[in-house]
């Protein structure tokens, strides 16, 4: 009866009104063979006090590390105002805004979010979110093939410098539709896509080129050249970007001559806590000309009966609840509350605030580079980078990381497939949250463990 309000009296009153004796009678259409399943392995009911205490203990178990891992999820300071407002019942406990007139709060917020994301990425339109950065990229691949219509080759070029999880998700979500993802070679000196190898694949035959900026190593790709080359091949350009980086870096809408066509990425750096991996949100922006191929919810501004401005879900003919098997995607529930957080975060920070966070992260990561250099650990790649760096160590990285954790430091990520040649390397990230003494601690722990 944990959250059930009924008193015994009310129950009887209701059963009488219905005309049955007991609740079980209401299940008389369920075949008897199915009834009374064995649920012994379920737990006993516990009051809030005990459950909270137990979860406190679990949370505490994993707490207290100084974190230098990035790799797609980034520790940033989140002003208190963000989640205080996100946690308001009116935002948190509303459903998807199907009844627009009773959902103007969420709808206007999403319209503002779409505007902010369009601004950040330099694109014309944005949807209301995808599940995460990885699945947004997969959807972008599907979208690019749709956008090429009759001309589609069902082939997409993926950079070898892409986050391998993103590559896996993209493959797992597209191959059944007979779409081929081709991995581009990268320069093992520069840690970026190898421009010289592009010639070999020239002559078209693919629908889109994916460009990750910064790439998985934290290095900056030559996005202008790549964009123009892809467009010259009749392909679309799908940008995968860290939205925070766009406070500093050239936005995809301005890459090369014509800019990227679709932009996706992980929205987590914009005010969403690490939270063990989610809920985050994927963002997805594109040119207006292909907006009808965009998956997910989209909010539009319109007028009400009195001619006043209001907001509503629009272009629903793209979506599964209207178009069913012809929809642009099967997505229904998205990551709305994380978008709420991101919108409030961007409003609080403004362009200048985001820029400072991005810049402090770049500089902090450079401090890590310099500090590790002093104990003989060198970056694997030169060239400009954002706020991550690949550092070479004399030891197999997985073991090193586990040992460092014993000393209270999460010393970055080790590389697995397809980067086995980097098995001694660490992928490190130092955001604006790291102090000089945090970095000192990292150096001290690593120098003890290597």
């Amino acid at each position, binding site marked *: 009866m944990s*959250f059930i309000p009924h008193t015994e009296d009310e129950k009887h009153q209701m059963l009488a009104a*219905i005309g049955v004796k007991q609740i079980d009678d209401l299940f008389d*259409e369920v075949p008897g063979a199915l009834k009374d399943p064995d649920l012994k392995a379920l737990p006993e009911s516990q009051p809030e006090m005990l459950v909270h205490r137990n979860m406190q203990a679990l*949370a505490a178990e994993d707490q207290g590390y100084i974190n230098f891992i990035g790799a797609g999820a980034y520790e940033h300071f989140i002003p208190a105002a963000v989640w205080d407002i996100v946690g308001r019942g009116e935002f948190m406990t509303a*459903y998807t805004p*199907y009844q627009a007139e009773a959902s103007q709060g969420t709808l206007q917020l999403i319209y503002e979010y779409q505007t902010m994301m369009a601004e950040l990425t330099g694109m014309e339109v944005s949807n209301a979110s995808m599940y995460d950065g990885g699945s947004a990229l997969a959807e972008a691949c599907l979208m690019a093939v749709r956008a090429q219509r009759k001309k589609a080759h069902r082939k997409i070029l993926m950079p070898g410098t892409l986050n391998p999880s993103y590559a896996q998700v993209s493959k797992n979500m597209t191959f059944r539709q007979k779409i081929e993802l081709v991995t581009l070679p990268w320069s093992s000196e520069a840690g970026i896509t190898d421009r010289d190898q592009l010639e070999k694949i020239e002559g078209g035959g693919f629908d889109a080129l994916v460009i990750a900026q910064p790439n998985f190593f934290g290095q900056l790709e030559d996005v202008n050249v790549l964009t123009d080359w892809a467009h010259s091949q009749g392909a679309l350009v799908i940008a995968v970007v860290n939205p925070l980086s766009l406070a500093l870096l050239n936005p995809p809408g301005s890459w090369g001559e014509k800019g990227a066509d679709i932009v996706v990425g992980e929205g987590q750096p914009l005010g969403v806590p690490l939270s063990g991996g989610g809920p985050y949100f994927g963002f997805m922006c594109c040119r207006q000309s292909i907006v009808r191929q965009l998956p997910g919810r989209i909010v539009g501004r*319109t007028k009400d009966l009195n001619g006043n401005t209001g907001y509503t879900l*629009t272009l629903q003919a793209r979506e599964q609840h209207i178009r069913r098997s012809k929809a642009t995607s*099967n997505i229904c529930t998205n990551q709305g*509350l994380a978008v709420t957080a991101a919108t409030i975060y961007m409003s609080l920070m403004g362009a200048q605030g985001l820029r400072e966070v991005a810049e402090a992260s770049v500089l902090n990561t450079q401090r890590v580079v310099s500090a590790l250099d002093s104990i003989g650990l060198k970056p694997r790649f030169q060239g400009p980078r954002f706020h991550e760096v690949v550092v070479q160590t004399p030891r197999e990285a997985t073991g090193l990381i586990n040992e460092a954790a014993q000393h209270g430091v999460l010393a970055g990520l080790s590389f697995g497939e397809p980067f086995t040649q980097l098995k001694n390397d660490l992928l490190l990230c130092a955001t604006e949250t790291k102090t000089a003494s945090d970095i000192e601690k990292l150096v001290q722990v690593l120098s003890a463990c290597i």
Partner: protein
Amino acid sequence: MLIFKKSKKNRRAKSLSLANHEVFSDPRSTLSDLIPAAFLRSDKPALPEVSELQTVRHYTRLSRKNFSIDTNFYPLGSCTMKYNPRGAHRAAMLPGFLEHHPLAPECASQGLMSALYQLQEWLGVVTGMGAVSLSPMAGAQGEFAGVAMIKAYHDARNDTQRTEILVPTAAHGTNPATAIMCGYQVREIPVLDSGDVDLAALHKALGPQTAGLMLTNPSTCGVFERSILEISAAVHEAGGLLYYDGANLNAILGQARPGDMGFDVLHLNLHKTFATPHGGGGPGAGPVAAGERLAPYLPTPRVIKHDDGYSWQMPNDGDPSIGRLSAFMGNVGVLLRAYYYANVLGRSGMKQVAEYATLNANYLMKRLADEGFALAYPDRRATHEFIISFQKEAKTLGVTAMDFAKRLLDFGFHAPTTYFPLLIPECWLIEPTETETLAEMDRFVEALVTIRKEAEEDAEKLKTAPHTLPVRRLDDVRAARELDLVYKEHT
């Protein structure tokens, strides 16, 4: 007013400024040393330039324009808008969870992983399935996982002629859309006037081309699929597999299990059945559970228990798993809320969820029927939800189900789901959930009776509703025709 209209050039929330961050005082490196100008952006994105109070006031005020469970009865069918425990929110927002990096080494993740492992186990028990993966982020991604697993199973057996997924005509849109995303063709199976699937049509449709059937039970018609055992036998007979869309699990939680019905794989919508907040659109969590045959194909990552703790099962090239569907570990914060909920409910609480959700729906159905509203399935029990139709009112009074819905908002109730399932004209799908009181439902009935009287006396009042909300009826056609998706006047 849009936040952009409150902007002023160079305004900002100064207390967030990092201009004095120690890192900026290190003379050894400046941004321009590290990143050449060619990579940098030349303009400043036109984000809002407002004070902290302006942001707080703007979004606090915006929030007040929403209906929500915390403020309104919200009987949105198929969505299970029950109370979202505040205790779950607090527990999931504990700093130890919030600060947890998804790629932290396992040795620094045992607390979190033990909660997730426990949840996996419990979801397996309550669905009657052997194995669970928590990673899908919502129902539709769970569906994708499940159908992809079915495909992987057939493919592994080189049974490649199976190109068709069957779905009932009443199915949720995500079902056919998912089948297509997985490379299947969709064949629709009609639903009888009784609300049950047309068994004869099903038998006819089944064949060596059948990969599987997707079914919601209780169905989207708000009734229990009585021939479920025959259906599953027939599909299995034909070599197909059965997918259970768990959106309606709230109706049978702890009372009957999809696994026992013969389903091979399913998803749960934790944001429905396990009371995690829907957040104005999301996030959700759509764990998949599978029986023996499909368990090896479950998506990763999953938590595995060893003698000395927990570890992540990660996708490997040789594995039969369909692999990962997102970059990390799923919507962990949502999963933690569900874990909290399962702990508070326990076995007995879970059973009661279905009992009282069903009691409430049947009571409300009876009351509305007594008041003369037309039930879609008058001879059937309601499950946790039921359908009424305004076809009569639409014909005789010229007011549609939508008009009724919009007017209902003026009475402080969120409207039920309208026009779904599509096969019932002018319908409402009404789901009160188990956390609402008798008194609230009685008030709902009263409001509907009043509105019908209004419809008879002054139909215009409904057609132009709502009258008391922040906006009047919105022009959806205009929204789609004169696309305005991004505010531009401020740049």
